[in-house]
């Protein structure tokens, strides 16, 4: 076990931040937009209302942050869990690239979408 630089602390911070954000925000959003509105329990808000909600710059910036963090959270966990479940730790580099790459791609997409 020699001394080695590791990216883990940074990845872990993103993972933890994402975990908190996901915990605090996702259940209510999925509940509203994914379940209650499509099932007709609640009415869809008008497009103008939704567009107005998304209009302020801070909201867009925050949304990008939320998306990036949550994706990193997911990427980090998927990477570790797949390695533990499938015993494929020897392909770590490849798996890591795939997972975090996906998260970065998602983030880029979010920026393109919102700006």
């Amino acid at each position, binding site marked *: *076990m020699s001394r*080695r630089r590791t990216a883990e*602390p940074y990845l872990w911070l993103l993972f933890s931040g994402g975990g908190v954000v996901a915990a605090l925000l996702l259940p209510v959003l999925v509940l509203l937009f994914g379940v209650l509105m499509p099932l007709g329990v609640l009415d869809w808000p008008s497009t103008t209302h939704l567009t107005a909600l998304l209009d302020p710059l801070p909201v867009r910036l925050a949304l990008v942050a939320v998306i990036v963090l949550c994706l990193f959270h997911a990427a980090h966990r998927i990477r570790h869990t797949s390695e533990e479940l499938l015993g494929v730790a020897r392909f770590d580099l490849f798996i890591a690239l795939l997972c975090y790459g996906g998260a970065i791609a998602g983030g880029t997409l979010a920026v393109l979408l919102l700006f």
Partner: protein
Amino acid sequence: MTEPDAVSGVDGAAKQAGRGANEEGEGTIRRVTEAKHHEVRQTTTRTITLEVTRYRPGQDSAPVLESFDVPLMDDWAVLDGLNYIKDQLDGTLSFRWSCRMGICGSCGMNVNGEPRLTCGTFFTEFGDGPIRIEPLKGFPIIRDLVVEVDDFLDKLRHVKPWLIREGEELPLTTEHAQTPAQLEAYKQYSMCINCMLCYSACPVYVLDPDFLGPAAIALAQRYELDSRDMGDRFDMLNLDEAVWGCTFVGECTKVCPKHVDPAEAIQRYKVTAAMRSILPWSRR
């Protein structure tokens, strides 16, 4: 002074323990007879089956299970059962034990699939049995119930588990001051008996023996959090196979017989290490 009336001659404390304990109504006589006795030793010949792993290098190519019937005594621990086998049925069974009071850490085995101290795991937990006793998972098996320990000890040593000091030492007439709160800050992590149950329970360790593992990291924290320690174990803890290898399964803490809470020790060091990484000037 054998007569009960001698009791009334003594002062308050004795009265409380003696006949004069009036707040209890009928006093201590009643309290004493209420004391719990272990139930009368069983005289019946009820037995329980222990299925024990045998592995004899040179003889077995892989471990096999062997069954033994031992007396089912209410106050026997699994270890008592193993000793019964060793003493009365088969002298060739090998396992480690010593203190039989949960403090030396040598008798850890897998009991019905769970890592346990066999001296502190009682028959009563298992009804009529059978009880399956296997060596601790995750370690190479030397023989029967005996597993390899050396790698674990190397890991402990690796984290420099001693007080690191700089500068002049105090003379041997003065102790370092340490308040009860400062003691409390690391005390829990100093309770580890090195029984290795947590390693056996940790899937990360079982999959990857290079993982530094729960007890060693808890031990590092025991010194890191000690107000007298001036060392810095960042370089040996901030590694993929040290704290970052842990995915917080949390099983280590669940099986720890001494409530060391290694899972907590590790997560706390993750915070420390992450802070140190983004704020390099934030030493301890």
